[in-house]
């Protein structure tokens, strides 16, 4: 549905997006994750036809956005970071204007019907008569969303749709986006990790203009975890590390924390060793206070991946080691462009 190939965007000497490629299947929600200034907005602006790329192609619903911009735009709905509202218009007037420029052929009655449908879909019908200037942040965002879905586009591009909202509004907006999936293919950018875990089927992690990983949120956390990690907290004489190392199947044992007699360990293993570990500790007469599989959150995954990318290019040599599971396939001219990052 959306295909981006070798997309590069330079602003003068600065490379904002560097050889980015990914695809989004029909009905999928793709999370576009990266720190601020990673190139998320620029990539989205290229896909929506707001700006051309320096190199590479982007295709929306089979239409190349550079050679067939009008066809592509008819099938794309875009919510920029700041909802593009005209303050002097009421919500209904605004959406009616949007309908006029987006629904070429439609007559007046059809346009009014679409406006009503979009307002219902995004729950803004109660502010239809209010001026856009007087709307709260949450409503502005939703009217922006109404604008994006108004022409029932196959593709929705949402740039940080939950930025600046309060927790309740964030929940509502996520719910809304999940509801839109299926009938629309969605790309959603964010720098908030739980958002991706909760709403997206697949994630593209981008840092300094390059893709550092593409996968499902689940796989990403699994992949990086490498071998399974177990966390145990033991009340004993502090020598449990040796005993734990003696348990068959245990790889590395690391002391994670120590509060007096309570010591926490992280144990790496190749298979499920929870029973053996528990037995070993109990048989020594120590107290087993906690025993749980440790799962890496996207937070850690993200840090690992971005640090990894930085380390590979020599920008952060001190970064901690991590398994190199999903580095970008194409490593040409790496390092060369980091000079001005």
């Amino acid at each position, binding site marked *: 549905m959306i295909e981006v190939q070798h997309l590069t965007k330079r602003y003068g000497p600065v490379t904002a997006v560097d050889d980015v490629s990914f695809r989004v299947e029909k009905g999928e929600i793709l999370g576009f994750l990266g720190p601020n200034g990673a190139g998320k907005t620029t990539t989205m*602006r290229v896909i929506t036809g*707001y700006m*051309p790329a320096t190199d590479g192609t982007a295709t929306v619903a089979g239409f190349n956005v550079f050679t067939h911009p009008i066809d592509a*735009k008819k099938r794309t709905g875009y919510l*920029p*970071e700041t909802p*593009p509202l005209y303050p002097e218009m009421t919500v209904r007037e605004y959406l009616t*204007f949007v309908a006029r*420029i987006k629904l070429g052929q439609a007559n007046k009655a059809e346009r009014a019907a679409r406006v009503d449908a979009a307002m219902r879909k995004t729950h803004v019908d109660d502010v239809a008569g209010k001026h856009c200037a007087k709307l709260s942040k949450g409503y502005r965002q939703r009217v922006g969303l109404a604008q994006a879905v108004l022409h029932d586009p196959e593709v929705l591009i949402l740039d940080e749709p939950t930025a600046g909202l309060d927790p309740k509004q964030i929940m509502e907006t996520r719910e809304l986006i999940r509801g839109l999936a299926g009938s629309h293919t969605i790309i959603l950018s964010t720098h908030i990790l739980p958002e991706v875990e909760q709403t997206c089927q697949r994630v593209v992690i981008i840092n300094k203009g390059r893709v550092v990983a593409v996968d499902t949120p689940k796989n990403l956390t699994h992949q990086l975890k490498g071998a399974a990690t177990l966390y145990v907290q033991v009340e004993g004489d502090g020598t449990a590390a040796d005993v734990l190392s003696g348990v068959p199947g245990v790889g590395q044992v690391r002391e994670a924390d120590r509060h007096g007699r309570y010591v926490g360990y992280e144990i790496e293993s190749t298979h499920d060793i929870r029973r053996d570990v528990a037995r070993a500790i109990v048989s020594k007469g120590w107290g087993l206070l906690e025993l749980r599989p440790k799962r890496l959150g996207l937070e850690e995954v993200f840090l690992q991946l971005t640090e990894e990318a930085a380390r590979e290019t020599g920008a952060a040599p001190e970064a901690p080691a991590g398994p190199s599971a999903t580095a970008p396939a194409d490593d040409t001219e790496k390092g060369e462009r980091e000079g001005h990052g």
Partner: protein
Amino acid sequence: MAETIRNIRAVAAKELRGYFVSPMAWTMMGLFAFLFGYFYLLYLNSFVEESLRSMGGQFGPQPVNVNMRLIRPLLSNASVIILFLLPMVTMRTYSEEKRSGTIELLLTSPLKDSEIVLGKFLGAIGLYAALIAVTLLYVGVLFLYGNPEPMPVVSGYIGLFLLGACFISMGLFISSTTKNQMVAGTATFVFALLFWIVGWASDMAWPWLGSILQYLSITQHFDDFGKGIIDTKHVVFYLSFITFWLFLTLKSVDSERWRG
């Protein structure tokens, strides 16, 4: 084609609405009417005085030409007023959309850049038409109580209209180059003034340069319209002037996309 016209109309209607829901259009129309009315009073007064004086002439009462003595200088004064007013109309066209981010809506909608440019141009033209329509009230009174020749009035208005359209097209371009409305407005005024006075340098040391500058002067092309002459060469000058700036606007919007 039908789609192009529909899109241009949609943008133009939105622009025009923008002017008229804010106090801007009304304030401008009110102040324009006030200034024009004051000029009207001044010229009417001197016209009446002159008429009275001519009654006592040695050849009996001589009619004073209402076109030459009243309408022509009035339209010429109106052109000075729009020199000041139109930069304030065009300064927001692109600058405001760029500042507030609504330009992203326009540029990602299935509209061609040319449709947006023309829509914005025609929207501003609509407001301008409303402005000069106000002056028709004053001139209408002259037709009611006097007998001016209609042709020079019509041609004068065509000239005034074209002159304003020139300022608007230039203002549109300048607005498309900046986010800052004040900068856009000031620069438009300065450039409009430049094209206004450029002909004053016509008696330069180098006659070839003088004649070029003379040709570029927008006021020099305006004079004939006031006399009741619609000369193709002046119409062509104005139309090329407008086309030139609209074309530059289009290029400016396009290059802005590349630069981001």
